[in-house]
């Protein structure tokens, strides 16, 4: 009832009846074309410019960026970070690329592969992309990388490979669509810095409900 009522009211307002199939297809062609709107120049530099911009913008958004020469250096760097923060446990995503590394180096820190629980102090996940124009990370939900890892723990450690940095959001959408044609993952997160709120007197405080700190391990 309501649906027909709403749609009929819209059509009456537009001064037309039910659109024909041909009219509908003509409008929906915009969707199949994935037409791009104006894209700001800022994110359209050379590869090295785009990578430098990503780092600059991520830092501006209060993310920490730690550059590593290779994935092999990751377990040691993560151990060092956690020990400095005095955190004894790490909840990790189980992507093959992460699992294949030698994690004995993490000792004495205890490693878990599960969803995040309230009280977890740190998580480690793999970013799908980095978007330079605003220093934004893109992550998505899958069996190996549950979404709670990105939000519940106090500290979110994210691995990003340098070659996965693109200049603008549009390039990331093209790559997300290619993941599984016709269906997005349940959750796609764009994350720019750690959680914050200015709801008390417009005074910015870090660490509202999501992670208090966001650390990006930039590989390569």
């Amino acid at each position, binding site marked *: 009832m309501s649906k027909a009522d*709403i749609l009929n009211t819209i059509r009456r307002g537009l001064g037309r009846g039910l659109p024909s199939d041909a009219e509908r297809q003509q409008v929906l062609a915009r*969707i199949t074309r994935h037409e791009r*709107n104006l894209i700001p120049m800022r994110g359209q530099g050379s590869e090295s410019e785009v990578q430098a911009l990503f780092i600059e913008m991520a830092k501006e958004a209060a993310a920490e960026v730690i550059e590593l020469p290779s994935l092999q250096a990751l377990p040691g760097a993560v151990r060092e970070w956690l020990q400095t923060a005095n955190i004894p446990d790490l909840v990790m995503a189980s992507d093959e690329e992460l699992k294949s590394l030698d994690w004995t180096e993490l000792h004495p820190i205890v490693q878990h592969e599960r969803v995040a629980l309230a009280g977890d102090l740190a998580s480690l996940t793999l970013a799908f992309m980095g978007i330079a124009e605003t220093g934004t990370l893109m992550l998505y*939900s899958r069996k190996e990388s549950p979404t709670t890892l990105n*939000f519940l723990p106090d500290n979110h450690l994210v691995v990003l490979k340098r070659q996965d940095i693109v200049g603008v959001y549009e390039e990331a959408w093209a790559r997300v669509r290619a993941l599984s044609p016709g269906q997005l*993952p349940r959750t*796609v997160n764009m994350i720019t810095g750690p959680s914050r709120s200015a709801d*008390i007197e417009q005074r910015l405080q870090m660490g*509202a409900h999501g992670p208090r700190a966001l650390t990006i391990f930039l590989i390569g």
Partner: protein
Amino acid sequence: MQITSPQFKENARIALTDVGLQKALGNVKNGFPQKRANAVKRLPEFDQLRDQGRDLKNHIIANLDIYLEEFEANVIKNGGHVHWCRTSEDARQTILKICQDKGAKTVTKGKSMVTEEINLNEYLEANGITPVETDLGEYILQLRGEHPSHIIAPAIHLNLEDVSETFHAHHHKPKSMDPAVLMQEAREELRARFVAADVGITGANFLVAETGSSIIVTNEGNGDLTQTLPKTHIVVTSIEKVVPTLEDMTLFLRLLARSATGQEFTVYNTLSTGPKRPEDQDGPEDYHVVLVDNGRSDMVGGELQEMLRCIRCAACMNHCPVYGSIGGHSYGWVYPGPMGSVLTPQMIGIEKAALLPNASTFCGKCESVCPVHIPLPKLMRHWRKNEFERHLTPKAARWGIKTWAFFAKRPTLYRLLSQTSNRMLRLLGGKKGRIHKLPVVSGWTDHREMPAPSSKTFMQQWNEKQKAGH
């Protein structure tokens, strides 16, 4: 919530003398406009994006039925449900039924103005379900039994002392005047609630027809915990939020944060598409989208159609001298400021909200900062005209306008009258040319002096210049 828009004048009078409110409103005036201006300066293409945003919204509205049906088809394809609700009552019942079917006792909520619009919290409570607001500002207001006074900074009318006292009374912890400590308290209090909730309700900033997704934009991460942890996720949103593609959503995201908080990008922009997948380890088992109409479809094709472009950034109220002086609660319903003065009469009726579109100096700042070029003064004028035609304007004002119109249509008489009153006012002004007291306009002279007019009227000066050959 109780509608107090008919008492707008009284509300405003009280607000102007409320010392605490006036102090808090300084945080709007001194913060948002500068932050927005800085963000705009950093993006040279900003104005071109605004033009594109306006054009794209116009395209969407002209094909709203098609995009909404495409959105619905894709939500269903992904295993979700769409509920079409013509009225607030339809929406409340729909949401309650979903909660009851799940045996829900508590519901966590992300920030949503549409749930304010449909009065959801009171309704859930009356039916034995506890709603828990999780946005820091909304949480503070829920503890205080108040409603938001701003669409993106709901507790902007409060000062640190207010929050400190509220938390002290509810959290049973030592009183603190440190905002960081207060936020930490809220974080700890809400953590268990997030995990325990049976249903999570969020709004949506946009709905993507192409993928059947909803997107929320937050800085705190509360919306993400709300839509990830409970077994059921309900998105409560309105029909004009649909956009064709991810690229189109991106255009609006580039405009939204910069116009709203002046950020380059909001911290969390999250797309939700259907329920969790069989192999996923977390995420909701059910995904519902409640599409609220509540008078919006009636705006299509009418004089208010352009208001449907609104992306709820709050730039209009952040830059409004009237909002900045009286705050959001004075407007007496959910949506304050210029956008509220256009929407409220549509949703609660012009007979209750007629004072709102009159509460504007028509300085035009709202239109000049709107990311989708909504002609807010023009739309407020539409309501003023409507009000006059329906004889809702107070007698004195009607008489005043009619009297003015009588003279305006008789130029000779008009000039004679203006010359006479000009002379009288100059006499009253004395040597200094300032008038201290004037009957009828004591609203002006009680607070400041009125300057006496110049010695010649505009028409006299005009005629003299014409003769002199200028």
